């Protein structure tokens, strides 16, 4: 087997192992809960309808951006728990800016998105600066910033809220039609529309891949993540990298709410989706911080979320089962990747050892 083949097989074996394990564990949970195992898997594995596919893709685009935001931090060993707060502050800002419509048409959209990224970056940057200058763990500071974000947005939302007659929702001013991002339709059925922002999410993935893999900045970032000490010795200013990585992570976090804002709700209000930042952590782990892996993780999460309603309504199981399945999948993926990684390292050490052996043998023949 060629080394490339081995690598490929190893790469495939981890997710397969994880899914098989997750399948087994979830079935066990269902059995214990007394739920119909066959019915559940039948429903989960049934072909989704057009509108479900649209929902999955749309929801995945949001989760993907969140996953990438977290992954940027992870690549540098920074645990940005604060994506949750960052995206909410940013989405609120963008909603207000876009709702006020100071600029016409898409200029308004662009301005709002830029503002969202800037605010997200700023919010994350606070944690970055604290870490770089004061050594405050970004885990602690971003958790605290999440709380502050919650209260701040709530406070500002009350100031900015407009109310619709007869509704008990409150939200920001609706974004004018000319500034909304149109969706793609891929069928005649209702709801078969995919957010235009999905394109931008894909673009973010490509940029992430390029920035990390092919640029000096990306190299410095990854090197710092792998070994701070070696990074310092190689001339990387770790404090600058910490701030830069947090800013970047926060800027991407700022984009998380944008597909929803410009493609679905057109306003930031009390029913805006929350908790996306935490889902992003799980998805980044699931995708091993790889742009394609994160995309698969996001799709998987979106897929499972989409199963929640039919499982309750059609099969009659608790939505908690879906949550449990998600948790189980993340755990099994993390564990199986670690197993496969160790196995891979051993394989490599073997091949190095073999190469050395044969060389030594030759050397000894020569000297003998």
């Amino acid at each position, binding site marked *: 087997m060629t080394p490339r083949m081995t690598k490929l097989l190893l790469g495939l074996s981890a997710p397969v192992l994880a899914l098989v394990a997750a399948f087994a564990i979830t079935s066990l949970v269902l059995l214990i809960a007394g739920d119909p195992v066959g019915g559940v898997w039948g429903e989960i594995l049934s072909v989704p309808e057009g509108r479900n596919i649209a929902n999955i893709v749309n929801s995945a685009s949001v989760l993907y951006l969140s996953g990438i935001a977290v992954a940027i931090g992870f690549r540098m060993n920074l645990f940005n728990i604060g994506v949750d707060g960052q995206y909410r502050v940013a989405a609120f800002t963008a909603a207000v800016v876009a709702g006020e419509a100071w600029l016409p048409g898409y200029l308004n959209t662009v301005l709002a998105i830029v503002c969202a990224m800037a605010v997200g970056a700023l919010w994350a940057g606070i944690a970055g600066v604290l870490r770089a200058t004061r050594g405050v763990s970004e885990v602690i500071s971003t958790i605290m910033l999440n709380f502050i974000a919650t209260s701040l947005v709530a406070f500002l939302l009350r100031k900015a809220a407009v109310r619709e007659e007869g509704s008990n929702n409150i939200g920001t001013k609706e974004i004018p039609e000319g500034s909304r991002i149109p969706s793609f339709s891929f069928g005649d059925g209702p709801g078969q529309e995919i957010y235009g922002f999905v394109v931008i999410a894909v673009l973010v993935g490509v940029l992430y891949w390029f920035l990390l893999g092919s640029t000096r900045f990306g190299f410095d970032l990854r090197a710092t993540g792998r070994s701070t000490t*070696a990074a310092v010795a190689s001339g990387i200013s770790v404090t600058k990298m910490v701030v830069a990585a947090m800013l970047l992570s926060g800027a991407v976090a700022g984009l998380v709410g944008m597909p929803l804002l410009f493609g679905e709700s057109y306003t930031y209000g009390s029913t805006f989706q929350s908790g996306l930042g935490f889902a992003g952590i799980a998805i980044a782990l699931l995708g091993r911080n790889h742009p394609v892996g994160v995309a698969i993780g996001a799709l998987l999460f979106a897929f499972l979320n989409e199963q929640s309603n039919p499982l309750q309504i059609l099969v009659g199981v608790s939505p908690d089962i879906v949550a449990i399945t998600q948790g189980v999948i993340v755990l099994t993926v993390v564990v199986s990747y670690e197993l496969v990684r160790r196995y891979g390292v051993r394989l490599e050490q073997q091949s190095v050892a073999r190469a050395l052996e044969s060389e030594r043998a030759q050397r000894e023949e020569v000297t003998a």
Partner: protein
Amino acid sequence: MTSTVEGSGPTAPTGPVSVRLRGIGKRFPGVIANDDIDIDVHRGTIHAIVGENGAGKSTLMKILYGVQPPDSGTIEIDGEQVRLSSPADAIRHGVGMVFQHFMLADNLTVLENVVLGAEKLHGIGGAARAEIARISAAYGLDIHPDTLVEDLGVGARQRVEILKVLYRGARIVILDEPTAVLVPQEVEELFANLQGLKREGLSVIFISHKLDEVLSVADEITVIRRGTTVRTVSPSEVTARQLAELMVGSELPSPSTETSTVTDQVLLSVRDLTLPVPSGRPLLDAVSFDIHRGEVLGIAGVEGNGQAELVESIMGMRPAATGTVSLDGQDIGGLSVRRRREAGIGYVPEDRHRHGLLLDAPLWENRILGHQTRSPSVKGPLIDKAGARSDTQRIIEQYDVRTPGADVLARALSGGNQQKLIVGREMSGDPVLLIAAHPTRGVDVGAQAAIWDHIKAARREGLAVLLISADLDELIGLSDRIEVILRGRLVGTFDPAHVTPEQLGSAMTGAGDDTEVSA
């Protein structure tokens, strides 16, 4: 291949065998760490085990101390076959181990350290104190139970470790590279202690790669190469060179310098370099020296006397440092690490795993490390993967890095090959100054020779080298001049051509206050 020369030498011991290893084998996936090892350790002797790095010494010791079970073979202790499945097992059978890195709590007394985890033996009070005093006296260890460990020197701490092992009833004491941390005077004291153990009928297993020491202290020497026993010899029948050749399996290099290539052009000039500490003695205290083109300046010193700080200050990693550092006439004091590297400083760090490599990155990415702003690894703001790969291939060839290719993770390489890669990388881009901290530490003899050769070759080309090493032979062999560092200050200059390791040792410990400047 295996030949046990039992009783063949004139001083070969004939007493009863306390440890008998037969056919010990241990495989890790793809690597045979131990293969058919046969050793007899006689009671009341010092038995040395020597071998290159990676020859399988540590694996063998881990097996004997119960850390890892062998895949094959038998262990007999005092004639009885045993299975050692944990260190506790080993202790129960009278096997004790003194590790290279001490495991002592600084803020506790000797008594507390010794009884820690062995409270059942003699309690923690008077009985324990009496027992410690007894052992100390019986073996001449000179240890007082109520001294705080933090007040003890390195040699004394090592004796505490030995005492700990004896307190737990060990009859067989394994010492892993015990002299690595000691200055020559302390080594002699240690050897005297070992003789004491021997006199009391204990067996000592002494692991080392310092052949002169082995020859002076051991009663028997077993050479291990590539996981198997090559020969067991008596020290009287071999020379150090023969031993080394047994270890390597081929002819040996030596670190001797050729004719001086020192020029009168000052390349690195350090003046009054001080690294203050908010409260207490500065880590570096007004250090001043010059290195000329084509000159190797060696820094000798007991570890922890400011060597690491000196290197890091020159590299720009210690922002608190004051004083001036100029490279080729340019003051580089205000420059970042990256600018200093770009100015032509190559850096072989002391701890290659922490400072020199990204262990989980492929070799070609490690090639880029420290050269992120210079070709051939980058093009503008982008990484030049092809360039980095091909230049890694060049290093692999020129520096004889044993690896299947540039895409292998650095972690997969042996220490010596990792170090050759680092040296090769730091020599890339034509540095004018090389800072090499312990460049051959933990490296096998073959790689050591190769690294010495590269340093010597670069010196001929006009490279200035700042060499930090704990290996006095290496310092004396490679340097054009040796400075001794003690408590952050340069305390003496020596000419390697005329200095002995003992003289250096005195200066390093501050014993000879009348610092002889024999340069």
